[in-house]
């Protein structure tokens, strides 16, 4: 029930993000979602892609520092209150979110929320118990 996410270290200098996306595009890797965490000195780019292994290989070959982490993808209806409901479950369970980001799928009906928790297993259990749909990597790629 986990999705593999690619994380890339970014120095704060112009053009780095463009180089990453160009590298992925040249190798036919499709980006499904992304977020950038930035500080004054560096950034971390987080990507959900359709081919994790290939993305990792081509980015490394181009000199980037790449890490693969597991995240949880929760599908909710793209309506007001969709995220709030999920967060209520998380709060109730006393879970700590390390970071999160979201994207809307192609049909536009549903939104996908990407979460990273300190306690991943407990988070999955709590979300499932409250009836949320958790997507696998394959399901995300198929969206």
């Amino acid at each position: 029930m986990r999705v593999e996410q690619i994380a890339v270290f970014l120095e704060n200098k112009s053009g780095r993000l463009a180089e990453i996306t160009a590298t992925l595009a040249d190798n036919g890797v499709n980006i499904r979602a992304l977020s950038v965490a930035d500080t004054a000195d560096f950034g971390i780019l987080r990507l959900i892609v359709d081919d994790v292994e290939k993305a990792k290989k081509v980015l490394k070959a181009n000199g980037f520092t790449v890490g693969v982490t597991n995240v949880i993808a929760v599908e909710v209806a793209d309506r007001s209150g969709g995220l709030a409901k999920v967060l209520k479950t998380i709060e109730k369970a006393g879970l700590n979110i390390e970071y999160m980001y979201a994207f809307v799928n192609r049909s536009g009906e549903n939104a996908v929320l990407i979460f990273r928790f300190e306690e991943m297993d407990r988070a999955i259990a709590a979300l499932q118990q409250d009836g949320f749909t958790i997507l696998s990597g394959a399901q995300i790629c198929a969206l």
Partner: protein
Amino acid sequence: MTTLYWEEEIETLPRVGLESIQLTRLKHLVARVYATVAPYRAKMDAAGVKPADIQSLADLQRLPFTVKDDLRDNYPFGLFTVPMEQVVRVHASSGTTGKPTVVGYTKKDIKTWSGVMARALTCAGATSRDMVHNAYGYGLFTGGLGAHYGVERLGATVIPVSGGNTKRQITIMQDFGSTVLLATPSYALNLADAMAELGVDPKSLALRVGIFGAEPWSENMRDEVERKLNIKAVDIYGLSEVIGPGVAMQCLETDRGMHIFEDHFLPEIIDPDTGEVLPPGEQGELVFTTLTKEAFPLIRYRTKDISRLIHEKCACGRTMVRMEKITGRTDDMLIIRGVNVFPSQVEHVLMGVEGVEPHYQIVVNREGNMDTMAVKVEVSEALFSDEVKNLEKLTRKIQADIKDLLGVTCKVQLVEPRTIQRSEGKAQRVVDNRKI
């Protein structure tokens, strides 16, 4: 202006008299060191030279050099020539692998030191009527205490204010009427800027002269200090191995060079590559032999500082040779806000952090008047995390470890792999952007 001297007779002695004193002291020193310190004896035996071979000052060249590694190899007290019960004080400087260089002083050494410091202060025109603001750091560093005892010896009033707390320093200057400032030149500029911020006019202070050392500084910086603080700025030289501050001092009559107190410290200028003594006036590595120190004498100690000796007569009447302002180093030592930093020390810290690869670069800048040091570290996969807090924790740890070992606050900057310049297959470890 009448020149003031602390010890007029010796300071103005004709060269022939001075050289005769030097030779007597040198012979005595070599005999004593040979008899009491095994590492020196071993080196002299290996070089095939005996104390009796020293018959002229030129014979000094037959003696082997002493280098910083000799001090480290005999850490902490292996090169002391007297029993510890005669040692009344120790000082230490930071070492490249965490082991500091330790120096010791007998009662007589402390007296010698305060004497040369009193001479240095007098060179700058200080007298017993002065209020001396000593902003050199107190502690293991020789700067603070070395200057302190010199001021007391002179009979002036010492304000042992040490470094930091700039606002309070300015208040003290105003309220106590400090007339002489002892500090690193960069701290002096810091004080000047703080005064400007606080709206304190330097002309309203009693400050007359500043004695600056412990880090390299340019003539431009001298002009800036003089203008901003409305004082005369003079240069002092010293290093803990030789004694501390008070090895050489600029007088008020010249802007060119510092008088070396040659009756205590015998200078040579050598070619750093061949070790040959260079002809008078040539630029090279400065080497000192301490003629009078008891606890921790040095024979031909290589300072790694680049200078030249000025033999022309000085207008002040002192006959002691002058050394030019230090123009560089023969090694990769950096001086950051008065603290000696070797790139190998930074490397040592980085290697102690799991996952850090030996790809780093030290970038030194001068922002305003303060030296800043940034350490760039390449982020390997082992170090990388998708969470900001983990990477920030890492930079804070490296920062804290460097501060612990070196006493210098630096900025740690994470960079992408293979982005640190490598020249000829070897990384360029230091980028010094300061214009000194």
